[in-house]
């Protein structure tokens, strides 16, 4: 049996942030994180806890993605309904909203493996952990990250330029 409190305390926040960045949906991220910890607690022994948690979380997200579209739509509707009912949105400037939208679009331009490697690295996973979670060789993680970072930044800058161009066009 693991030390429940320690495992949760050490990895919950980072796992939720990773999943939120990846999925763009905090509720979904929290649910996946919950299930990940439940599975961890049922596991007799985990050698590398962080890599294990991220691997399970990735698998759970993949499983979710395979579920039928109707159920997914239903869930989305429920989440939207819940948000409308319960929470006054945090004030978010137009600029920040645009940044977030551009970042999301730039991220989506990456291959999935590159994207996940980058997000996990941002959460502090080392190359061995990323390799384990994604089934890569350790030697290829550097190349994967280099490609992911370059493409992300290039895509983001291209989107920024497009937006500025549109703005200039609208102003003239």
């Amino acid at each position, binding site marked *: 049996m693991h030390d429940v409190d320690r495992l949760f305390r050490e990895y919950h926040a980072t796992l939720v942030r990773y999943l939120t960045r990846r999925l763009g949906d905090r509720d979904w991220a929290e649910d996946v994180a*919950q299930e990940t910890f439940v599975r961890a607690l049922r596991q007799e022994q985990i050698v590398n806890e962080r890599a294990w948690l991220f691997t399970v979380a990735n698998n759970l997200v993949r499983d979710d993605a395979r579920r039928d579209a109707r159920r997914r739509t239903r869930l989305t509707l429920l989440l939207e309904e819940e948000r409308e009912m319960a929470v*006054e949105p945090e004030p978010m400037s137009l600029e920040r909203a645009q940044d977030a939208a551009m970042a999301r679009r730039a991220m989506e331009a990456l291959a999935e493996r590159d994207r996940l490697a980058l997000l996990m690295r941002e959460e502090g996973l080392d190359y061995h952990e990323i390799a384990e979670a994604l089934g890569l060789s350790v030697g290829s993680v550097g190349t994967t990250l280099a490609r992911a970072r370059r493409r992300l930044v290039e895509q983001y800058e291209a989107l920024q330029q497009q937006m500025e161009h549109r703005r200039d066009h609208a102003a003239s």
Partner: protein
Amino acid sequence: MQHLDDGTIHAWIDGALHADRAREVDAHLAECESCASAVAEARGLIAAASRILSTLDVVPDRVMPEPRAAAPERATSARSTSWPLRAARIAAVIAIGVIGATVWTRIERPMQHDEQLTQSMEHPMQRVGEAVGATVGKIARDTVAASANTSAPATHEPAPAARESAPATHEPSPAAQPRLPAHLAPRTDASPRLVTTEFRMTPDAHMVRRRVYEVRPGVRITLEDVRPSRAYTEFPAEPVARRAEARTLAPQAASADALGAGATPTMPRAAAAPGAPAATTPAVDSTAARLAHPGINTIQWTDSAGTRFTLSGPLSVEALEALKARLP
């Protein structure tokens, strides 16, 4: 030695190379300008990628669990500014506008009378200076008074300069609020606002999510839910019909602790709907616990997905039932 490839450079920056390999890279970088500039570029990419990814943390309606626990509180206090205080601020803005107009008028007017130009320029400016001083002092007093006593209407006379424009904003009595256009009215009966979200794990491997909502300033309720594994994948096709079982229970100490010191056990504006289920015989009735936390009520229910909810706060059971419908 060949030039370094991107993967090696990123691995070197990330500290992921074996010591031997890292030493080789160090030696090469000391000699190769081309690779040194590639390292500089890679550092820029890493920083830029981090910054881009951090913008994805902006999710409009939830609070990150741990990193900045204080931030939501600060946002809450900003949003829950009392109506009288906001009225005083609006009055201040209007008063400053009026003062500005007065300054302009009094400077303009002497310019039209050349024979009085010199003395008029001195005189009005002096008067304007006095008016500004008096009005600013007045606004400060009003603001302090309004924030000190949020329920009493402000009784101060508006400053002379602001008299014509500002009086309406100096009468912030609650009775006057419904006359405001709907989009300007303070949201005293708005949906409860999420203040904090916490998670904990029970020894039997269930995750408990505990959310604190503010019903209105000073009145907070706590909603705990214990979700079964993968509850969200089991939503039925029809809207969730919640199976309610309203019971007055001994409040949990943890829930009571979350309540603000200024919490008042009064009904929210949106009182219990006529059809709301009434409290039934208490399933658990711990007199000692209730005496320890008088006025704290708790209701529990389970939704069709199997999630167990516990809602507690300094409100009547009927009020909690009414609020339940407005909570996730």
